[in-house]
């Protein structure tokens, strides 16, 4: 397993380049297919070619021509960001307690949160709708943010507590003995160690909120809070029987861009956390 090698002679670099290319092909070829569909004209959609024979921007023009898609994009970004921030903060707090503190009811909390993650969501949608309707939350941002936080929390708590358990907390004590204040010890030692877990969780939660369709279609009814995955099912073909494949593909491409930016931004933090952890460790 060359993967674990630590030095970097020229041959190794070439080998890594090859492996990287395989990864890129694996990840991107199906995505390129969606990209290609989004650039195909309506009449050449079904020509069995991987690359478009005629290129068109029409699908992109179409989706940005209506205010609805932009509005849905705004809803998606706002809802996913707010839900991610809250879920990660609440999850970090709970995970810290689970990993580091001794208290009665810990197993219950862990068990209940797993139970929530296990229950089929399709059967929870109708009662949730009734609750939200009577509270006036139906078709509002909080009406989606709350379920997203809820269903992201189990994963957040599990991921984070798994990480917090593995963090060498004695380093904190060592730093304190070296004369650091508790705040410094946390900022310089613990925070960098915890960062990979926290940002990994943030990415997962964000993608979960971003891609959800079930709640988005069931708990919204207008553009006030409809997110992009739900908005996709309001795109029209030329008739009731024709699927708007081109515009849906274009929209899929557009809404993948924020994910890429989000991951780009956070994966740096994962690297940062990693290196400082390695230095101190």
């Amino acid at each position, binding site marked *: *397993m060359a*993967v*674990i090698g*630590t030095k970097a002679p020229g041959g190794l670099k070439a080998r890594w*380049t090859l*492996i*990287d290319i395989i*990864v890129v092909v694996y*990840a*991107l070829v199906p*995505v390129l297919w969606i990209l290609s569909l989004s650039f195909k004209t309506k009449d050449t*959609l*079904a*020509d*069995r070619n991987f690359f478009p024979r005629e290129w068109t921007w029409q699908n992109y023009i179409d989706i940005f021509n209506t205010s609805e898609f932009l509005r849905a994009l705004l809803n998606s970004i706002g809802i996913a960001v707010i839900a991610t921030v809250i879920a990660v903060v*609440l999850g970090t*707090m*709970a*995970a810290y*307690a*689970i*990993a*580091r*503190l*001794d208290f009665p009811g*810990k197993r219950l909390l*862990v068990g*209940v949160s797993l*139970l929530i993650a*296990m*229950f089929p969501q*399709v*059967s*929870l949608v109708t009662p*949730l709708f009734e609750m939200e309707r009577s509270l006036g939350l139906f078709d509002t941002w909080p009406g989606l943010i709350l379920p997203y*936080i*809820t269903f992201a929390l189990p*994963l957040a*708590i599990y*991921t984070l507590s*798994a*990480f917090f*358990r*593995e963090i060498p907390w004695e380093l904190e*004590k060592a730093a304190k003995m070296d004369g650091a204040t508790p705040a410094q010890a946390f900022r310089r030692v613990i925070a960098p160690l915890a960062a*990979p877990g926290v940002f*990994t969780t943030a*990415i997962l939660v964000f993608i979960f909120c971003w891609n959800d*369709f079930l709640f988005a279609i069931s708990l919204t009814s207008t553009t006030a809070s409809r997110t992009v995955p739900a908005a996709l099912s309001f795109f029209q073909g030329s008739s009731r029987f024709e699927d708007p494949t081109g515009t849906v*593909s274009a929209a*899929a491409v557009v*809404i*993948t861009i924020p*994910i*890429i930016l989000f*991951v780009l931004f956070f994966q*740096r933090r*994962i690297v940062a956390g*990693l290196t400082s*952890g390695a230095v101190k460790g």
Partner: protein
Amino acid sequence: MSEAVDTPRAAVKGASDGKKAERRLAFWLCAPAALVMLAVTGYPIIYSIWLSLQRYDLRFPSQHEFVGLDNYITVLTNSYWWTAFGVTAFITIVSVVIELVLGMALALIMHRTLVARGLIRTVALIPYGIVTVVAAFSWRYAWDANTGYLSQLFDPDGAPLTQRASALTIIIAAEVWKTVPFMALLLMAGLALVPEDLLKAASMDGATAWQRFTKVMLPVMKPAILVALLFRTLDAFRVFDNIFVLTSGAQETGSVSMQTYNNLIKGLNLGIGSTMSVLIFLAVALIAFIFVKVFGAAAPGNSDNGRR
């Protein structure tokens, strides 16, 4: 036990005070998360369980009555249910195993690569970021005998989505492609915790790469692997979108989630539909229980938590 108690030779009174403070802190840390989860799901879950004990079809409100476990007997003695159950279990096992292997490989690559690390880490996550329904449609388009480049490439005259074996393979491939990044990301964050000097030391002691992987890396990553496996299995067992789009469940490729959808949402049979939900939940709970047993102490909340 914890920081508060770590103070050497703490008085007994002090220890119990510390204990109280620790509990209070833990309570305040956990309360918000617990509150949100219970507020949102408490009533819906209990309501579903209650519905599963009723004969309740929305079209026949007059026949609404309490029937105890009758719905469970109806579902569990039905061959449709067991076919779907078998298909679901098959898809779950096969895809999760493949995902674990590929996910581990991808995690190592993302973690260790010397070339274009940032690019790889970002690109590898894109499949997970694509909206599932759209990805499923693009696969359907690619494999469809009339529109697809893949069917053109592999099977120009046939229609792979209309044969059970090839359709299942395509469904699993679509699942795997989509979720390997999820596994890899969790495992990579686990890898980040493996101390570099420990690996160097093992290497100097003459451990082979495989030994370093199994003896040094795996034990540290155990909790991360558990979380990744657990949550992927929960999700895989509820597979819906890919099947719905790719085959609509034809040729006996339907999953238990599709059946639940058909009974609960399309059929409006709240009793039977909720029963299926509870059964899926029980099946998944059993899987989770086995995982936690197998992985033992790696589960969060186990007794040795909080110390190293």
